């Protein structure tokens, strides 16, 4: 085999490994009050972690961050119809994820999901965008329970979605960052709505 081919493939392999490690620093383990476990992303806002609504059933969740510390997160906003929840912690968390533009994704773009499937910490999965993104990003990728709420990043390591659904063998969906932005944009509180502030 030609040496340059080996070098190129090794470089890609190393780059994916590096990307996985870097992304994992902003991914937390989320344990809900009813024993549910999933993932969360340290967002680029003070003291904020974004996860899926279905990961946190109660008002609080335990967060285990990359260095092993355990923190209490309080649900400050949730939207079941978008499957999103925002958790607030008492202290600043680092490093914050870089948030990317999900609308800029094209079908075929490389994506990496990092989460905590089946209790494994920070397991990466490589895949591609399989359909034109809108409120969700359709993915050709192998994900498992526990990937929910984690980070889906593009090739530059920017978060473009929150994986939330396995749609079949090798198929999954993520809530796009377009949707997360809408969720966080302070859509007005509606009394009797699904939003819960504490």
């Amino acid at each position, binding site marked *: 085999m030609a040496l340059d081919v080996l070098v190129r493939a090794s*470089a*890609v392999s*190393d*780059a*994916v490994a*590096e*990307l996985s490690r*870097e*992304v994992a*620093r*902003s991914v937390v383990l989320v344990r809900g009050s009813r024993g549910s476990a999933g993932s969360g992303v340290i967002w680029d806002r003070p003291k904020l972690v974004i996860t899926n609504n279905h990961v946190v059933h109660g008002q609080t969740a335990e967060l285990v961050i990359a260095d092993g510390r355990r923190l209490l997160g309080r649900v400050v906003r949730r939207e079941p119809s978008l499957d999103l929840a925002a958790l607030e912690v008492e202290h600043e968390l680092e*490093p914050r*994820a*870089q948030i990317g533009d999900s609308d800029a994704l*094209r*079908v*075929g*773009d*490389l994506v990496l999901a990092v989460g905590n499937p089946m209790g494994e910490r920070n397991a990466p999965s490589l*895949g*591609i*965008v*399989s*359909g*034109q993104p809108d409120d969700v990003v*359709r993915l*050709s990728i192998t994900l498992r329970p526990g990937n929910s709420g984690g980070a889906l990043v*593009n*090739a*530059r*390591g*920017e978060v473009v979605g929150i994986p939330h659904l396995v749609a*079949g*063998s*090798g*198929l999954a969906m993520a809530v796009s960052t377009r949707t997360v932005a809408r969720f966080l944009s302070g859509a007005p509180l509606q009394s009797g709505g699904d939003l819960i502030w504490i």
Partner: protein
Amino acid sequence: MTLSATSSGLLASLSDDLAEAVAHAGRSVVAVNGRRRFPASGLAWSADQVLTAAHVLERDTDLSITAPDGAQYPVHIVGGDRASDVALLRVDGGALTPIETQPAELKPGHLVLAVGRPGTPSPIASLGVVSSAGGTWRTAQGAVLDAYLRADVALLPGLSGGALADVQGRVVGMLSSQLAGGDPVAIPISTLDGLVQRILSGGSLKRAYLGVSTQPVELQEGLRQRLGIAQQSGLMLLGLEPGAPADKAGLLLGDIVLAIGGRTIEDGEALQMALGPDAVGRQTAIKVIRGGQVQEIAVTPAERPS
């Protein structure tokens, strides 16, 4: 996130290449509207011909395709073969961009993209690697094709009839979810070429036919030694259709078929493989055991009645 510039640049350019490849192949992948559920995919074989998977056509009339630019065209079926899961459609007034093909050998491990367009404005795609590339095989529906490509791409709904493409967006085969019992498999371009030629020359694909029903039987060690044959089993004839080629040639119930045209027959699959389109109308020697002796009998397979 402090990804090194080298890694970031490398992955970003790989990502761009893959997205470009999807867009490139996608220019020649159309939606095929021929079933009640959502559409499937098809390949622009020429400006006014689309090749698709036969199983996605649930009706013969009221068929249409949607081109990548969103234009819808009525189509009619030129011909096809369910067992090979191919159908050729004529696109009246079509001005499609024909697929760019890549007949070169892809080996296990090569990256490939599955690209379809099940009625969506943008193509859909999944990524995988070639798991195996092989020669003559029998489809789940009984057709004998001379090559296949298997890949571990995810079979998104509506991908049948779509492209298996290399990382430059060149089409290497047409995808089917049916030919291998639900696993993704693609018919390579060179095989598709042959199928299209046959469809255009005859309207449908012929399959050879003998008019027999058979059962594999083990050949006893003593018998094999006495007759000097190596194979472990043969096919015993349990039924003969009156007037069919086998009956006309003088084959009898109880004959044990050992070979057809020099091809060893040990089971029903081997028999099907021997009865490809090329066998129709061509006199072929069938080697059988009859009354404890090996005999050769000349048979001319006919075209299988549909």
